[in-house]
């Protein structure tokens, strides 16, 4: 095997060496470079990952034993509201947008995003929104009349959000934070779509584009039609609270169900907004560590687009118990079942890629195997909940909580961790420590299964979600205690990751430009990539340009 020829780099790295710290800070604050903005997104999302995780641990300590008085009911409501809002809007979306920001231009051979200044604007709006949400804590009772932290749940069902039920300004902080995060998300999604459609390097037809940009394209399209309704609903809610409008005011003929519809028209596609990038990471990592080309590229693209469309017609399966009537329920049962078809296609394609490959169990691949199994199980409980009669029994129980955490943590976070280990060498030029990585993987895997496998059972035994404590002698005690221990395992695993990232930055071994012997364009530039990425804009002739470069005797078209 020959070494990959590197594109001649402009002789400057991230440009921070030897400059006074004030200049470095100024440079980061004013940057429009897609890599720096991507990194800022990731750092700020990691901060919120730690905060949101801390809130989860507090909740599990409260629920670990019956009749616990660790936190008050009011504080518990605030904890689950802030945990949900933080993890979806200020951890999930920013971290995935950050990865997209960093990777998409590199993978399509572009020098930057299509609208660099809009990119910076979107980041700062999103970051401001996150701090605005937590400002409600600092505002405390009385100061700035902020009330205290929001306690209406991340779904903010009417009429909990009306002035009568939540006086003070905590709900307004929530509304504004979610609204601004929506503006930032739409801006970034617009930028990603435009970048992918208008900035591809020569020869990179849509059919030759790596799967990661493809999935980000679908995900961004979904953001337009999913996040915008939420933004509209926040405008309505603000009108209700501040101008005395009656959108969700049942006393004046308004409808609380309408809020549920508007919220879940956002809420369900949002799951796919989060999971499509997770698929994207799997699509890049699994082939490289199986040493095989991706199996069924066109099917993968088609399945992603299909998921994007079908996900728009499944929202009311969150509302089976709200009384939509048999016709409505039947439609949404059917639509929800149908979406498992393209998802199944994806799982089979990943398995077919691994099948017969020379599998290398480095840390990224370990996380991907965890992702595959857990995503499969999450899909199975999803099909269970999609059946309306079954759903009536388990609605608003811990079974539902266990199911969606299986998707959000078992699939998305595992895939994301794999992506961290995979692209860290590209971003910093240093390898992450493998031993610490394995500790992280195993602790997190064990913690994950302790928490979320066992969480299904109290749900089936009738434990409702969102209760702050429970009585002794219902058979939930041991299970909840195990769940609490699992949460602490996961927290320790995540802290190991953060420690590993910081330590490897200073002490890790040099990575070189292509440590994994990979095939996509980002590995053809030095690590970390210089400003403007490519000294000369590349030209590609196949889906795996670096493979062709390394193996001229075995061109890629045989596999396309």
């Amino acid at each position, binding site marked *: 095997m020959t070494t990959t020829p590197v594109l001649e780099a402009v002789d400057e790295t991230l440009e921070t060496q030897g400059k006074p710290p004030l200049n470095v800070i100024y440079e980061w604050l004013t940057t429009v470079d897609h890599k720096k903005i991507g990194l800022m997104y990731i750092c700020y999302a990691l901060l919120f990952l730690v905060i949101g995780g801390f809130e989860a641990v507090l909740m599990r300590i409260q629920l670990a034993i019956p009749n616990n008085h660790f936190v008050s009911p009011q504080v518990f409501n605030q904890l689950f509201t802030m945990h949900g809002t933080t993890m979806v809007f200020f951890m999930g979306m920013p971290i995935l947008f950050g990865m997209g920001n960093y990777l998409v231009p590199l993978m399509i051979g572009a020098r930057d995003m299509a*609208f660099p200044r809009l990119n910076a604007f979107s980041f700062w709006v999103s970051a401001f929104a996150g701090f605005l949400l937590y400002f409600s804590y600092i505002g405390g009772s009385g100061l700035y009349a902020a009330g205290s932290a929001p306690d209406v749940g991340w779904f903010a069902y009417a009429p909990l959000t009306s002035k009568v039920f939540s006086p003070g300004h905590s709900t307004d902080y929530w509304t504004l934070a979610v609204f601004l995060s929506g503006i930032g998300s739409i801006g970034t999604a617009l930028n990603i779509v435009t970048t992918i459609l208008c900035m591809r390097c020569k020869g990179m037809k849509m059919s030759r584009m790596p799967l990661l940009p493809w999935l980000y394209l679908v995900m961004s399209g979904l953001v337009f*039609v999913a996040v*915008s309704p939420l933004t509209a609903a926040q405008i*309505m809610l603000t009108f209700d609270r501040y101008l005395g409008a009656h959108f969700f005011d049942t006393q004046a*003929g308004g409808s609380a169900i309408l809020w549920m519809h508007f919220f879940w028209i956002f809420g369900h596609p949002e799951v796919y907004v989060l999971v499509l990038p997770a698929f994207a990471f799997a699509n890049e990592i699994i082939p490289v560590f199986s040493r095989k080309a991706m199996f069924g590229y066109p099917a993968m693209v088609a399945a992603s687009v299909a998921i994007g469309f079908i996900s728009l017609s499944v929202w009311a399966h969150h509302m089976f118990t709200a009384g939509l009537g048999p016709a409505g329920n039947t439609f949404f049962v059917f639509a929800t079942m149908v979406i498992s078809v393209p998802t199944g296609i994806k799982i089979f394609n990943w398995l077919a890629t691994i099948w017969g490959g020379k599998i290398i169990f480095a840390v990224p691949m370990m996380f991907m195997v965890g992702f595959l199994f857990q995503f499969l199980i999450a899909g199975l409980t999803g099909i269970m909940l999609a059946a309306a009669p079954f759903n009536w029994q388990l609605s608003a129980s811990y079974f539902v909580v266990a199911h969606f955490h299986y998707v959000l943590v078992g699939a998305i976070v595992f895939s994301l961790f794999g992506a961290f280990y995979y692209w860290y060498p590209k971003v910093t030029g240093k390898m992450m420590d493998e031993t610490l990585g394995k500790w992280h993987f195993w602790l997190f895997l064990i913690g994950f299964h302790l928490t979320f496998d066992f969480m299904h059972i109290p749900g089936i035994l009738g434990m409702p979600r969102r209760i702050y404590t429970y009585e002794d002698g219902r058979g939930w005690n041991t299970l909840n205690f195990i769940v609490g221990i699992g949460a602490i395992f996961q927290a320790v695993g995540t802290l190991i990751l953060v420690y590993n990232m910081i330590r490897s930055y200073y002490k890790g071994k040099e990575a070189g430009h292509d440590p994994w012997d990979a095939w996509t364009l980002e590995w053809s530039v030095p690590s970390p990539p210089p400003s403007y990425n490519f000294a000369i804009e590349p030209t590609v002739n196949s889906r795996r340009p670096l493979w062709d470069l390394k193996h*001229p005797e075995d061109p890629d078209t045989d596999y396309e």
Partner: protein
Amino acid sequence: MTTITTASRIPIDGPIETPWKLPYRGNVGMACLIIAESAIFIIFVVAYIYYIGKSLSGPTPAQVLELPILGTICLLSSSIFVHLAVSSLRKENYRGTTLHLGITVLLGTIFLATTAKEWYHLIHDEGLTIKTNLFGTTYYSLVGLHATHVVVGLIMLSLTLVLSLAGRVKEEHSEKLEVLSLYWHFVDAVWIVVFLVVYVLGR
């Protein structure tokens, strides 16, 4: 090594030798914005349709609304003039551009004035505010959301008009003016929907 060149023996089957042409990013970006904005408008329209006839107290739309014929004609015809402004810019007819932009801004302003007059009438003579009933809530939200978009469009068009009067708008800017005209066409198209829902279906 400078570029990743044809390292393989595969004949090039793509349009690499011919000029590699990708869509203009302004148009794609505006198309994305229009999709997102449409989703926002759809939510407001759905809320409006859902609440038709559900107000618990008066006044009803049939009692107070009148068809805004003049405003509609002005707004819809302004779309034609903004299109003419783009095509005259392509032909380097700069005086035509300025003239057509001026007419567009004028027609848009007339539309905004008719909306303002209508709101003044509703608030002062009929006593209908956003608080009064569900009709007031949905009416002011939907029409107000559209009017906000008209205001944004008018600000951008007026800036372009000022630049054009100063002789700064040249042929090479025609793609950018076209992006702005796409936005204006979108605002017009939304008005057709709002007009049908509020003034035809709602009454």
